[in-house]
């Protein structure tokens, strides 16, 4: 299987602070890959650099063999890499439908099919399509954030802490959806604090510590790894 994303020696700096200190990892096409690690390990910064929201200080990011390092966010989105930002960040004053349409903003073709696809995945959104985004519950907002990203018809969807602040039952629902999206051919790059859930879902996992990759393996391998258990799973 080929790698859809290849990250080499990626460094991200905010002013003088080095958030990501040269990490390398691969995302194979059609898989779910997760980055786990404590707060401040550099997970979010990595995703922000891939999506073009921050410019990396050095290193390279390639998508399907093409270099996309330092490209603008709209260019990267139009190629098919999209970020579901941390904390959902839906547009509170726009309706659910308008939120979804913004997701398809760069597309010029017909979006009806994708709208139906998202509504099939999240029937709740269809019921509330005329409601303002800000009036949805936390779980519904997370569905909207995922649905909005799917409207761009991505090859890779990157999710930053989709379980943040949600009840366990809803978290389970979100992870079911992640698996479902993956089954339909979308590669998923997932960041999670909820390491247990993330490693159970993912094919591959990377452990980040203070800006470096310290461990790598399949989901099951990491789940049974003693160091991971002690640090992230609390067992």
């Amino acid at each position, binding site marked *: 299987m080929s790698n859809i994303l290849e990250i080499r020696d990626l460094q991200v700096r905010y002013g003088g602070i080095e958030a990501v200190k040269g990490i390398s990892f691969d995302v194979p096409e059609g898989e779910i890959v997760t980055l786990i690690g404590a707060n401040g390990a550099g997970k979010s910064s990595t995703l922000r650099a891939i*999506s073009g*929201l921050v410019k990396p200080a050095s290193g390279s990011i390639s998508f399907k063999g093409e270099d996309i390092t330092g490209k*603008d*966010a*709209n260019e*990267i*989105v*139009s190629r098919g890499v*999209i*970020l579901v*930002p941390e904390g959902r*960040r*839906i*547009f*509170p*004053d*726009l309706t659910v439908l*308008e939120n979804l*349409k*913004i*997701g398809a*903003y*760069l597309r010029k073709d017909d979006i009806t099919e994708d709208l139906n696809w998202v509504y099939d995945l999240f029937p709740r959104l269809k019921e509330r399509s005329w409601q303002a985004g800000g009036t949805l519950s936390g779980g519904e907002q997370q569905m909207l954030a995922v649905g*909005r*990203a799917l409207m*761009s018809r991505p090859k890779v969807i990157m999710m930053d802490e989709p379980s943040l602040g949600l009840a366990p039952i809803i978290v389970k629902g979100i992870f079911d959806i992640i698996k479902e999206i993956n089954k339909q051919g979308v590669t998923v790059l997932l960041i999670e604090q909820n390491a247990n859930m993330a490693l159970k879902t993912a094919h591959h996992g990377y452990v980040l510590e203070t800006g470096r990759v310290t461990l790598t393996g399949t989901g099951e391998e990491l789940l049974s790894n003693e160091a991971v258990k002690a640090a992230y799973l609390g067992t």
Partner: protein
Amino acid sequence: MIQKQKNIKGTVGAMIGILFVFAIVVFLENLSAMFTNVPAILQPTSQLFTVLKKGAVYSLVAVSMNLLNGFTGLFSLGQAGFMLLGAYTYAIFTVPMAAKDQVYYLYGGSAVKFSLVDLFQSFMGTGAASLICAVLAGLILAGIVAALFAALIGLPVLRLKSDYLAIATLGFAEILRAIFQWQTLGPVTNGANMIKSFPTFSDFNIKNADGVVTLRLSTLVPFVVVAICITLIVLLINSSYGRAFKAIRDDEIAAEAMGVSLFKHKMMSFITSSFFAGVGGALFAMYVSNAQAKVFTSAMTYEILLIVVIGGIGSISGSVIGTFLYVACSEWWLRFLDAETYIGAFKVPLLRSGFRMVVFSVVIMIIVLFFSRGIMGDKELSFKGIGGLLSKCKKKKTTEGEEGTA
């Protein structure tokens, strides 16, 4: 499908509403010609028509500011500067050649050896058509010049956030005001003196051969121009670009993550807003019959900002309603407070010159305290909305009545 039908219904409704307003304006202004004993309020010199004209002009500027502040979330205070650019552009290019020497007598004539009025008269004759074309071309040119300047200063300024953007645009407007009064530019801007003698609203009144006005259209003209401009702004806001503006307002980072180019869209909103502020400035010059840099102060921008806040940030109809209320209060309804009044031999206390502004400030404070989101919030005026409000009032009355009987 259903939504589309609703939209068509709404559009038709809005168009009928606008035409109705046009008809009323023409009717009111010509009442004094049709009947002999009309009350003073309907005389052509009445405050009513001042308020209507100024209200129309200001509502365009308020809506253009709302596009930027309310729909794109960019807090800019440069509106008076762009109005100044529009007013001067219009004035400089539409003063007829014959009047130039007299207007620019201090500088021995104008450096601009060209006038849109003469240009159109040279191949269209001196009729109404050439006047309309010259004024239209002047207004569009005014907008384009304002938009060009917006594009220039937008490059560095739009990278700034919130307060810093406000300070930078405010500074830009103040600098412009100083430059336009600079003596060295006199042959173009007439220095600190006003430019006048260009076509104004009253030139559109239709006169017969003896020079007697037969049909007054001076109030209709600003209404028509402003209605067209506001319609264009509404179309922009309802397009997918407008949706991107609102997304940027709601959450910049999320909008960028969805592939909305922040700079491109901010620039588009800034340039569009400035274009219409420029047209508004040109209309303002037509309204006061002169162009003078010293009136386009930051106080004017605050006035418009106040209107936007009172009307409701993010509501076009709110801005329009807010404008007419504000202009009517400041120009007309509260005027009596400035006059010393006697009831019999009793002198009413407090009423003296300047007291109007005190009361006005209190009214504004009350509005800000009790309508913290403005008159309209971010909703728009619609027939459905009015109907809903009426039926609510009715219901309230009936329930109150029932309580009374029980």
